[in-house]
């Protein structure tokens, strides 16, 4: 027990004299997670609506892809993108490897299927009657999708929270494509990995506390916007 108290006391001390280095990590974590959540939701919501409402060729394949994507191992996504962005790889010329941009791309790959799956599920969850009303409106496809998304807005809020939750807590993909470089690509999760590997447990716990606060804050805020919590 004494060991744990020491670690906690260390963590409090690390937080109390936290300098620009930690705040930079926090800022990058927020920026990368927000950007990838934003892009993931922008892509995922229309995709989810199309999956729930549309009748088109390839829908089955797309559905399967979304299901696979929702459970896709982040570290594997990271590895595949590392190969693609490696200097001598297919998109190496873009010079994206070990940059925040590569981290955002990796997390968009992780967030989009989650957003699509949640939105698709909540539109289908609206039930038969709203669906029939929707069909009776005689709208174009896009307009129909927009009405359905508006009806399922609590689902959209959940999609934002779930996407953000997945990317902010994720370590495998950002570690592999970002490289965890100080001042450039280090985020809270990769900082925790590094600190615990070096047995600086106080610093690791401090970073973990900040990560937890961010995750909680976003979940509560999004829950409010969507009109309901868990």
């Amino acid at each position, binding site marked *: 027990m004494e060991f744990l108290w020491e670690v906690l006391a260390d963590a409090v001390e690390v937080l109390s004299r936290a300098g620009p280095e930690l705040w930079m990590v926090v800022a990058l974590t927020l920026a990368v997670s927000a950007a990838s959540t934003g892009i993931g939701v922008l892509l995922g919501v229309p995709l989810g609506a199309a999956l729930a409402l549309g009748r088109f060729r390839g829908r089955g394949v797309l559905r399967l892809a979304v299901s696979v994507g929702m459970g896709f191992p982040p570290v594997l996504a990271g590895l595949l993108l590392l190969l693609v962005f490696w*200097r001598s790889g297919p998109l190496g010329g873009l010079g994206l490897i070990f940059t925040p941009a590569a981290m955002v791309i990796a997390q968009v790959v992780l967030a989009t299927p989650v957003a699509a799956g949640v939105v698709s599920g909540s539109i289908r969850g609206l039930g038969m009657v709203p669906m029939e009303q929707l069909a009776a409106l005689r709208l174009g496809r896009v307009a129909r999708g927009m009405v359905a998304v508006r009806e399922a807005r609590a689902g959209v809020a959940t999609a934002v929270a779930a996407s953000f939750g997945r990317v902010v807590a994720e370590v495998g993909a950002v570690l592999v494509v970002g490289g965890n*470089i100080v001042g450039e690509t280090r985020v809270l999760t990769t900082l925790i990995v590094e600190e615990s590997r070096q*047995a600086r447990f106080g610093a690791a716990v401090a970073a973990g506390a900040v990560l937890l606060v961010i995750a909680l804050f976003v979940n509560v805020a999004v829950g409010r916007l969507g009109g309901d919590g868990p």
Partner: protein
Amino acid sequence: MGSRSWLTAVLAAGLAAGALAGCSPDETRVTVVAGTTLVDGRLLEEVTAEYEAQRPDVRLSVVGAPTARALALAEAGSADVTITHDPSLEERFISEGRAELAEEVFSSRFILAGPRRVSGALRGLSAVEAFGRIAEQGHVFVSRADGSGTHQVERDIWDRAGVDPTGMQWYVETRQGMGLTLQVASQREAFVLVELSVFLSAGETTGLVDAALDPAGLDNPYRAMAVKGSPVADESRAFVEWLASRSGREAVRRANLELYGAQIFEP
């Protein structure tokens, strides 16, 4: 699945985990904390496997940590044997009476790796001259910056070159192990001070070349120490003695040949 078969599955998983952990009661576990460079270079894996084959009663658990961290772990009683490469830190550790036994066991060397088109101009220079040149031109340089033996050697060279690179636009600090640092240097087409075996194992994928500096001052001696006060003091001591013995040195030579086809870690 019914509740019965769940139970079976859980039991099977438990058994598998037990088998993987492989805890045999008559095995003594010795924790060896070694420099990350040594662990990334894979030589130690071969050598410890050979020792375990000779001493089936001993299991060596190898953990990689930067030298400063490895010695701190030893001080805290979390390491039985250390194999590190920072002579000044090791001498302090010994003078504080913390080592039961200390032996210099083998030595490799550092090279400066860099992009082909600019490395040629540094050929034959001393490390100090080359570093000065890099700073002058502001060429990107990637540093471990993690308190490792490698990082210490790099800092000494900057000091002697009269350059403080910290905070410079062209100076990238990864604060991580040798393998990742080399990757970052490779992708940024940057210079990096790297231990030779790690550079050789990464091979062509880095796209970097050995700048072929004058090797003076770039040797990398490793010292193995049995930590005083270890609960497995006899086994720890025996392993360090073996590493320094004729048969230990033979094992290091064989591992070198197998991995690199040349004597990179000279016993």
